[in-house]
């Protein structure tokens, strides 16, 4: 699934002039809560499948809506939330902007950036709380946890496990795995391999898409031969940028479905999620942003909402106190996903159901029935406590 914008606007710590701000500036508030949204979205380079552009403001619009939502509670508690936005097209200037905000006293950040940038920010903003709404990197949740970072975006392992559980239910256990050339594609493929092993699937063949095939043929024409391997039940594709994967459905050698980054896709959020009150969130978001809410918007929305829910409960905005409450089991969060959400104490990942979607319909929701877990079925998705070398709750922030 391609989330990356290619036409990035340069925003330098722009304060937003929308309604919530006037409330936020109101002198009547007893507690002013400043949250900064930091974004650096690298250019993905030229893509084969570039017909339908992705929104360039994914993430920020979710954070903005969450500020408005949070001020609705804040208004009655005399808490005022405001958002500082820093969107940059290189990592270094984002770091500089973040440091400047930190200098002004900001200690709460929602970050939409790749893992290396997030690591730098985590170090530079040491005494702050960062919520990762941009990187699905598994290492950040497994072996290289950052003590002051929580994650609202699902990890690749969670997405892959959600898909693999559904494929178990459908008994589609023989996979052809096609992987793109980028590091992100390799990481997505690694998550799929892990999920295959976890849930007893068999990868009957693996192919790397390099596009150095016969250049006189189009991608569509390439696919039937490219997918001619030992027989499979389903084609799994790892193409996070959305370069070639869109050309796989209906072009496979065997008449089989496609899943992964294209076709049937596991994601944190999608337009077709509507139950459990989600329809109301979708409507509010669409009125605010004039477009559909995607998984980045949702992760940023939930990042701000997590902070605000903790502030409402604590009646203060200290980053360490919020972190400690989030990592305890005392902060149930409402994410419109049919059950309360909470952060895993071992790696700070938000546990959450994962919708499986096709472009215009919700296909299923994982965890699937029957995948049991001793403490929470939601922990059957992603890295569980025994598989993780971090212990965030015990680590000093």
């Amino acid at each position, binding site marked *: 699934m391609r989330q990356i914008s290619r036409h990035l606007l340069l925003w330098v710590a722009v304060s937003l002039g929308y309604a919530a701000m006037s409330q936020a500036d109101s002198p009547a508030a007893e507690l002013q809560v400043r949250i900064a949204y930091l974004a650096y979205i690298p250019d993905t380079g030229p893509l084969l499948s570039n017909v339908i552009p992705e929104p360039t403001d994914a993430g920020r619009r979710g954070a903005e809506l969450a500020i408005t*939502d949070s001020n*609705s*509670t804040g208004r*009655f*508690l005399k808490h005022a939330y405001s958002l500082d936005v820093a969107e940059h097209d290189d990592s270094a200037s984002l770091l500089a902007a973040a440091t400047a905000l930190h200098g002004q006293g900001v200690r709460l950040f929602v970050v939409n950036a790749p893992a290396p940038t997030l690591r730098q920010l985590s170090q530079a903003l040491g005494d702050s709380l960062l919520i990762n709404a941009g990187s699905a990197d598994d290492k950040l949740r497994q072996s290289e946890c950052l003590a002051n970072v929580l994650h609202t975006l699902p990890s690749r392992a969670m997405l892959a496990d959600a898909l693999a559980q559904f494929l178990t239910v459908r008994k589609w256990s023989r996979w052809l795995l096609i992987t793109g050339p980028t590091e992100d594609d390799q990481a997505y493929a690694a998550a799929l391999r892990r999920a295959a092993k976890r849930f007893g699937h068999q990868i009957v063949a693996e192919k790397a898409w390099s596009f150095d095939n016969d250049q006189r043929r189009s991608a569509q024409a390439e696919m039937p031969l490219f997918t001619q391997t030992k027989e499979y039940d389903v084609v799994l594709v790892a193409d996070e940028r959305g370069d070639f994967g869109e050309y796989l459905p209906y072009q496979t050698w065997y008449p089989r479905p496609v899943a992964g980054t294209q076709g049937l896709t596991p994601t944190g959020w999608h337009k077709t999620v509507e139950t459990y*009150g989600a329809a*109301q969130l979708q*409507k*509010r978001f669409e009125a605010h942003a004039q477009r559909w809410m995607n998984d980045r918007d949702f992760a940023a929305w939930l990042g701000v909402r997590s902070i605000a*829910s903790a502030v*409402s409960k604590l009646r203060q905005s200290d980053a360490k106190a919020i972190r400690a409450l989030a990592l305890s089991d005392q902060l*149930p*969060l*409402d994410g419109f996903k*049919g*059950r*309360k959400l909470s952060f895993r104490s071992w790696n700070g990942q938000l546990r959450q159901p994962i919708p499986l979607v096709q472009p215009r319909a919700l296909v299923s929701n994982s965890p699937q029935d029957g995948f049991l877990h001793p403490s*929470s*079925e*939601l922990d059957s998705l992603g890295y569980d406590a025994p598989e993780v070398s971090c212990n965030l709750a015990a680590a000093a922030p």
Partner: protein
Amino acid sequence: MRIALLAASISLALASTSSLAATAYVSNEKDDSISVIDLASMEVSATLEVGMRPRGLLLSSDNKLLYICASDSDRVQVMDLATRKIIKELPSGADPEQFALHRNDRWLYISNEDDALVTVVDTQSDEVLAQIDVGVEPEGMAVSPDGKWAVNTSETTNMLHWIDTSNQTLVDNTLVDQRPRHVEFDADGKRLWASAEIGGTVSVIDVANRQIEKVLTFQIKGVHPDKVQPVGVKLSADGKLAFVALGPANHVAVVDAKTYEVLDYLLVGRRVWHMAFTPDQSQLLTTNGVSGDVSVIDMQSLKVTKSIKVGRYPWGVVVTP
């Protein structure tokens, strides 16, 4: 002799029907209809077409009129139960979900889910008397028995909003657990029960100071705590028992309304939403959204005695004598 016997049997028949002749009305959210259940035969006797996405239902104090929140039609419909025709539509504001009628039988307090408003409509003049700003996604609505308070819950703001009905203004707020869905006053108006769907709790609030007095939690063997999601609350008229519908936990909790001890959990249909007593309090009906049926709980034995198939996604329920 024969006549006397006949008369006796007729009066017997009348007596037995009068206690059982109640009629239940159930709104079917995805069928745009109301199922009418004859509680003597325990069968659906009619299905009435209404506006789009009907959810909240309530009755006028004389049980002659049925008010229906037709959420996607953005209006409240009024049905004359004698003719079963819609006699008028009230200006409700957008997306009405739940509502409550003041004891004066005129002021209807409606929560407008999409607009963060409570709209007050006069049911006789059809005028909008007030629109009151509340939190995001207003849902539950109740008016105190003495008519002094109207209380609204807002699902995203996580608050109860206290509206003074004498001047229709918001005067206080009580922070409760995540996603408050429903509020219910007890018979003497001293306490307010508020369910929190995501928090998994029911808060009992002292109306005098609007502070939380007790927070109830629920544990059902074999059901994961995350699936315990309280929605509807009903209190028995004698003030002894409270019933809490636990959503996807598929159970109704029976609570001692004095000691707040949970006495039992009754298995009903899937995703149980709202409830209503029969007028004689002998039975409690529950709407079960996902299984598309109504469960009947016998109040004497506290057992589920029957389930009745209705339309798709039954939501609200009321019962007339």
